[in-house]
């Protein structure tokens, strides 16, 4: 066994899990609590919405009781202005300085709006936020986000909630290769192998919600994701063999006995 690796660090927080759990789509808070525990996640995203007097239970309480830290998002924002205002409100509500920055450019694909995203990121970094931007799988945009001071980059594997996995693993690899901040695959994961692939490509963590929350058995899928992310990371660190076009025997070719007399 090699030396134990240092824990994953994100925005100054040392985390012993590389899974970040999105909390959208769970049937109720008790399923969420069960899945969160099974996932081993230490961080979970939340959104900000109008107070609902009829709502039962507090998601903030449920997550904190489970030992998870809350990461507010700016889901539902279509402009830099709205995203910045939402981030400021989240900081006030949750008394934390980090934000999952989401600025959507299209309501069918839910793909990010690159220019609004970059503008919002720069503004929020200037206001002292640790900005974790949900971004396209575009290596150039990822670099620009890092240049304006984002604490991580979070490229999508495929559109939010699509379950299509990682559509362009080459771009994710390019983003990982050039980044000096953590790379978190965010969106598109459908099943455990997608999460494992993200880690094998060298991502530092995976953020997923629907794959667990909308699975038939969310706690079981949460555990599957936990194991996939752990094994994907181990495989990445262990160093995979190169792909070859032809076979390469693993058994020595010397010393093969002659078992029949030659004709």
């Amino acid at each position, binding site marked *: 066994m090699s030396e134990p690796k240092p824990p994953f660090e994100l925005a100054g927080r040392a985390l012993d899990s590389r899974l970040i759990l999105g909390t959208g789509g769970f049937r109720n808070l008790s399923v969420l609590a069960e899945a969160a525990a099974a996932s081993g996640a230490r961080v979970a995203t939340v*959104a900000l919405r109008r107070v609902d007097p009829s709502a039962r239970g507090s998601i903030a309480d449920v997550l904190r009781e489970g030992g998870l830290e809350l990461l507010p998002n700016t889901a539902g924002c279509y402009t830099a202005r709205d995203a910045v*205002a939402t981030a400021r409100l989240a900081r006030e509500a949750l008394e934390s300085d980090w934000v999952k920055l989401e600025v959507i450019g299209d309501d069918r694909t839910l793909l990010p709006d690159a220019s609004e995203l970059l503008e919002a990121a720069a503004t929020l970094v200037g206001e002292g936020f640790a900005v974790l931007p949900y971004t396209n799988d575009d290596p150039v945009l990822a670099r620009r986000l890092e240049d304006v001071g984002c604490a991580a980059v979070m490229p999508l594997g495929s559109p939010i909630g699509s379950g299509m996995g990682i559509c362009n693993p080459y771009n994710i690899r390019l983003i990982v290769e050039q980044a000096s901040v953590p790379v978190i695959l965010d969106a598109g994961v459908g099943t455990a192998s997608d999460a494992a692939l993200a880690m094998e490509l060298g991502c530092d963590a995976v953020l997923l919600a629907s794959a667990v929350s909308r699975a038939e058995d969310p706690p079981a899928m949460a555990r599957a994701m936990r194991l996939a992310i752990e094994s994907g990371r181990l495989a990445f660190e262990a160093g995979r063999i190169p792909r070859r076009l032809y076979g390469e025997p693993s058994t020595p070719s010397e010393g093969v006995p002659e078992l029949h007399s030659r004709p």
Partner: protein
Amino acid sequence: MKLSLNGEPRELDDGATVSAAVEAAGAEPAAGGIAVAIDGEVVPRSQWGQTPLREGQQVEVLQAVQGG
């Protein structure tokens, strides 16, 4: 005075503060996890009690919910 509270037209007493709006929205001002915006600007919790509301303002009282 008439104002908009979480998107609904509401009538609050003249001189009411942000704290009154938080209660009127159905939240407990002492509870954590709540943020208030008036016309898009954050009102820090420490100022809820001293900040008077004005006719026609758009008041949003927000809390953390499932998402992301």
